[in-house]
């Protein structure tokens, strides 16, 4: 399905590959979600869970990769192409200072998922109001309005919504 070593190479460039704590793994999940949304498809299928888009296969691969002998990992670092570097730069610009904030990454990913993937009954066009309303229904009181607005603007500026 995916080249885990390559994925780790991308993540190394963006935010690191720590998976010790739940917050580390939440950051990993949302970062890979945006990696795929922004053109570096690693073949992970994201479903909708309580903290937003989540891939159980990604967690499984993360664990298996981390359990590899360190020497073995070091010998298998793949090269990345100029086109991939360009995409990584774009993703880093998009995530910006939020790359180390698991809750803000959850907010960004959730808004994106609701807008671009999810189905909302009786709604033809999912505009900003509809998406934010749905987010608040699913995660009542979890995020401040100012953070939601800023996250939407960030997604908009990178043509994700």
């Amino acid at each position, binding site marked *: 399905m995916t080249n885990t070593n390559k994925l780790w190479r991308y993540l190394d460039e963006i935010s690191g590959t720590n998976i010790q704590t739940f917050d580390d*793994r939440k950051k990993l999940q949302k970062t890979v979600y945006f990696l795929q949304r922004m053109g570096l498809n690693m073949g992970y*299928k*994201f479903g909708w869970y*309580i903290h937003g888009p989540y891939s*159980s296969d990604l967690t499984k691969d993360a664990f298996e990769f981390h359990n590899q002998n360190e020497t073995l990992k070091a010998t298998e670092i793949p090269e990345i192409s100029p086109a991939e570097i360009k995409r990584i730069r774009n993703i880093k610009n998009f995530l910006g200072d939020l790359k180390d904030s698991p809750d803000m990454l959850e907010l960004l990913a959730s808004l994106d998922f609701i807008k671009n993937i999810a189905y*909302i009954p009786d709604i033809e066009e999912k505009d900003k109001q509809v998406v934010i309303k749905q987010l608040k229904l699913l995660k009542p009181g979890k995020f401040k309005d100012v953070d939601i607005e800023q996250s939407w603007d960030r997604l908009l500026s990178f043509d994700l919504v």
Partner: protein
Amino acid sequence: MIAKEIYDNVYGFIGVNQLELEIIDHPLFQRLKNIKQLGMAYTVFPGAVHTRFSHSLGVMHLVNKIGAKLIDDSLITEDDLSKLRLAALLHDIGHYPLSHTIETPMLKKYDDSHHEILGKKVLNNFSISDILNSNYDSKEIGLIFNGQSLNQTFNQLIHSELDVDRMDYLLRDSYNTGVHYGQFDYEQILRKISVDENNLLCVDHKAIHAVENYITSRYYMYSQVYSHKTIGSFDQLVCSAYIEMENEGLVPEYETIQSDEEFFNNYDDHYLITLLRLSAKQETNQYLKQIAKMILTREHLNQAYEVKDLIDFSEEKVLPKYTLTKHIMDNFDTQDFGDIPKKWIFFDAPDVRFSKLTPYFDIERINDTIDEMSEAIYIQLEDGTTKPIVSLSTSIIKHIAPWRLKTIRVFTLKQYKQKLKDKVDQLVGT
């Protein structure tokens, strides 16, 4: 209202309504009658010729049983159940010939070729959507069976450790292979199923032993049937044949598969067997010819090497021999196998587990790590709280959940068997 009853060898009569009947009669669904549920398993278990068609009906039947109970408990509506039935019926609509056997090489080449993703595409783009969209939205149905609905309960019914898909295939595969390990008390589980405050599926503690039985049944079916070495060897041959056929232009690329309805309606086991028969007769590609003949005459590969380890993944310790063999497998392209042709060396690495839990599972932080626990099986205790079964000290599952049976096998032709064994032993250092 029931429009027709279809007799199923596992559950007896399964009722379908008029809309479901129209879907079942559509060529896209009828195609599932020509796709074996267990791929090449019939080479070992002659009875394993049941199809994705009967499995899809079975999954719909089980979701209906759960749904009826959830409606009684006012946890879902009739309309919800109708959608769940459709999602269950259509969840395998995108399956490949011989099911996962062909999906494997497809996933290696095309990132978005998972059968559920393909299923979502064909459901939305092919003419079957006209039938669905008369009453429902095909987009919503596709999202449900991909686990992408915004409704957690929907996702869990089709995608969790206790989902209806898994329940049916265990029972059905057990019945058809004759391997009894897959039998478990599903009626008891379905009677005691509910939804907790986080909208996660849970089972009443009175059915905990039925759940434990289900989990161990699943483990044994995986170790005895799904990971059977001979079936694994045929899977390797079929994968290689398919890759060769694609290179020769005998099978189309993924772009055609997902967009050409006429082609897709015929993209089934018969299609593949026809291509194998033609491949066995042609002279242009001798490798493909030989593989095709082996598949058609049930001449399996020989196992040259095997390493097996039952590990407690929470301790993260694996036999060094397993790790080294895995390294060889992962770096196959750069390994030196002497004069053994690499095209006749095949690695298979089944991984059988009791639970999908990660080693970072932390009982103290269940609520924080709830995403990672979303696929876990929750038990509703006497006090009304719910906990994953793996965290309950009185459940045997807590003690066996961390264990995984990890195997790596290396197959080849009979004439290379001893040489390959010696070579791998040398590379591993044994």
